[in-house]
């Protein structure tokens, strides 16, 4: 495992573009801490991030993991381009000729995905802890370390998303097309769902068809990954209060669901398995 990781990290680190992207990614993650400094004043609506409740334990786990996961696109670009490069340089072929098995080749990529996801999770954990300790109104140990499932969800979300990238990059072989395809897929999940729900099935509240199509959407790869950590902003008391005033009764469930974890685990393993099958079957 150490050998395979060292091979892949050498490939990534010695590539200038990948190196810069990696640095940008981890730097941006660290800069998340500066969110605390956000303050704006619209006269009637005054907002200070530090006092908003963002950083209260245990909510902070939810907020930071949600925001930090947007940055994963940087790592996705690295993963996709490193695989596309292996095809365009002909080095995938050469690695195999030099005595790497196809399984080892894939494992070196998978280990890297796990490592990146783990380091990212650890960093988010550290940053949240520091921010929380500084700004949280509650600092009892029991409260600090509750709701840590968001960190697990964050890790899983990254692993699953990168596996998706890995599979598509192996399939498509071109980095630009792969990234484009991921975007199109994302649109496809949403637009496809909308078309089915409103045009073909005809939306009725609590209708059986609507329930089924919503369930299907939640089981799709990108949607299920995004469901792992639900958008947290409406959880803030400030926003809740505004909502109440306007008359929106938000009863959204923010917890990490076991069923979603199972679905995402299923997709992640499926993408890895398909990547292996694809690599095994393809003549180079």
């Amino acid at each position, binding site marked *: 495992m150490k*050998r395979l990781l060292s*091979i892949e990290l050498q490939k990534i680190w010695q590539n200038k573009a990948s190196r810069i992207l990696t640095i940008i990614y981890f730097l941006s993650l660290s800069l998340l801490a500066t969110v605390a400094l956000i303050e704006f004043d619209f006269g009637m609506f005054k907002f200070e991030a530090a006092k908003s409740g963002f950083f209260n334990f245990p909510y902070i786990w939810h907020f930071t993991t949600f925001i930090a996961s947007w940055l994963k696109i940087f790592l996705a670009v690295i993963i996709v381009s490193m695989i596309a490069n292996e095809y365009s340089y002909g080095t995938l072929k050469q690695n195999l000729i030099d*005595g790497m098995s196809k399984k*080892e080749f894939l494992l070196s990529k998978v280990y890297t995905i796990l490592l990146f996801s783990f380091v990212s999770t650890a960093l988010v954990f550290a940053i949240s802890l520091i921010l929380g300790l500084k700004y949280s109104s509650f600092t009892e140990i029991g409260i600090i370390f509750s709701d840590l499932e968001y960190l697990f969800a964050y890790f899983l979300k990254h692993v699953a998303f990168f596996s998706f990238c890995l599979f598509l990059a192996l399939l498509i072989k071109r980095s630009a097309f792969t990234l484009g395809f991921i975007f199109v897929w994302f649109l496809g999940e949403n637009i496809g769902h909308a078309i089915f729900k409103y045009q073909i099935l005809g939306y009725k509240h609590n209708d059986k068809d609507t329930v089924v199509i919503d369930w299907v959407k939640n089981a799709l790869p990108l949607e299920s990954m995004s469901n792992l950590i639900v958008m947290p902003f409406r959880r803030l008391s400030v926003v809740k209060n505004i909502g109440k005033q306007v008359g929106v009764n938000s009863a959204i469930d923010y917890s990490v669901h076991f069923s979603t974890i199972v679905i995402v685990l299923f997709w992640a393993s499926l993408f890895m398995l398909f990547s292996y099958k694809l690599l095994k079957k393809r003549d*180079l």
Partner: protein
Amino acid sequence: MGTILKITNLHKKYGKVHAVNNVSIEIKKGNVYGILGPNGSGKSTTLGIVLNVVNKTSGEFEWFNGAYSTHEALKKVGAIIERPNFYPYMTAEDNLKLVCKIKNIPFTKVSEKLELVGLLERKDSKFKTFSLGMKQRLAIASALLNDPEILILDEPTNGLDPQGIRQIRDLIRIIANQGTTILLASHLLDEVEKVCSHVIVIRNGITLYQGTVDGITANEGFFELESDNLAQLKTALQSFTQIEKIEEDDSKILVYLNENLEASELNSHLFKQSITLTHLVKRKHSLEEQFLEITKQK
């Protein structure tokens, strides 16, 4: 002598194209093999299959008598297929170190092999700055990193300038003289003739000849004859049982033999029939002519 690679009844089909058709080859330690075949004859596909990058349709192949799995065996093999494949953004040295990691060997040989191919002073240059000749030499250095049991070279001089070809050829000679088993696929038949002890001829995926270079060139040979009266000469030649066939080529008559016939014997016999020859040469086919002859049939 130990068997390094044994291929048995190997087939590869790409849809309707039968790229490799029932190829059986045995590579023994210490020999230098040349694989000959026109473009698209299935040479590279065969090599691709044993090198784990192309999936076979049916048949078997076995490295080192099946002592290792294919990818473990390949760690003891040095191979270059078509163009040199390296990471362009890495230096020559880093590229070789990466190969060391893949082959699970220490970095100790990196400098030695760079020296051998004359790239030591360029070790810190990025691969993308290299000329094709230098890239190809780096590929050879990389293939030799583990002091392989066998070196497989697929068209190593393709696209090189005369100096480059010369350098690669000299390198192959040096390596062959060190006793390394070599499998060389090449169009340059004189090169194969000079370096190789054995040849394998493949066309349309079918093995046409397999054996020693001497075996393929040591035919009975042929005569080139000229005379003032060709018609009379041809009739007179009919009486020889050693003659396989007679061909006319411009003003010359080419006489192919199926048994040994000395030039003096032929000459005196014709002279007795009052035919005087103006030109008499006994020749043997070069590997090139023999190769063209073999691949022309069928």
